[in-house]
């Protein structure tokens, strides 16, 4: 069973940055050794030890997957960030244009739409910045 856990950790750390993968593999290898040694010292039956090790692996599978996703994803996608900023600026520009044109055309409805565009773009931008932190 220890072999299965060792193979699993090497599988879900594949293609990760070397220091990250080596650290996780090292920690799990040490944990496995300590767990098995502890249980053997208590006289626990091998089958029970194997089930305990398997249980710890199985209960943590989801956490392993989410950890891998987290360490693989680079913090911030520059292209996505640039597109978001450009979209926000475009929305503000359209909003300002609508307000100016609405004033020139004596069209309060257009001015209101323009103001909503600007407020919405600013709100969206602030939320996006807060989420990225």
């Amino acid at each position, binding site marked *: 069973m220890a072999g299965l856990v060792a193979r699993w950790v090497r599988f879900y750390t594949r293609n990760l940055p070397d220091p990250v993968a080596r650290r996780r593999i090292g*920690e799990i290898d*040490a944990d496995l050794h300590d*767990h098995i040694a502890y249980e053997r010292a208590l006289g626990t039956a091998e089958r029970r030890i194997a089930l305990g090790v398997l249980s710890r692996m199985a209960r943590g599978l989801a956490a392993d997957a989410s950890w891998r996703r987290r360490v693989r994803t680079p913090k911030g996608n520059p292209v996505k960030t640039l597109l978001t900023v450009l979209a926000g600026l475009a929305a503000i520009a359209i909003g300002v244009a609508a307000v100016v044109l609405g004033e020139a055309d004596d069209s309060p409805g257009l001015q209101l739409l323009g103001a909503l565009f600007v407020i919405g773009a600013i709100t969206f931008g602030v939320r996006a910045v807060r989420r990225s932190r």
Partner: protein
Amino acid sequence: MPRRKPGTLLPLENEILESALAMSRSGEAAFHGFGLAQAMREQGTSRSLTAHGTLYKALGRLEEFGLLASRWEDAESAEGRPRRRLYELTAKGVHAAEQALAAEENRAVRGFPRIAPGPA
């Protein structure tokens, strides 16, 4: 899974800090993953040993938050077995652990049932 509110710790993370504080107070400032899982089981915060993925992910997060610091143990100390990653509470971690303990004690006191009879 609910989104983590920025600046908050998950219940498991608080349990880890509390266990780490208890171990530190009993003279074991540096601990490793299996030792921590054992301590948490003995202290009754978990019925079974914490899962590998759950435990090491939480330890990593606490280190990112600056509440724990870690290092590999010396090769000489690890003769005949894989080297352990040793963790210690930082000053910030001690403070967070004490806050978590205080909050838990507060909850325990508030949850105490009324035993005195109410007004007639």
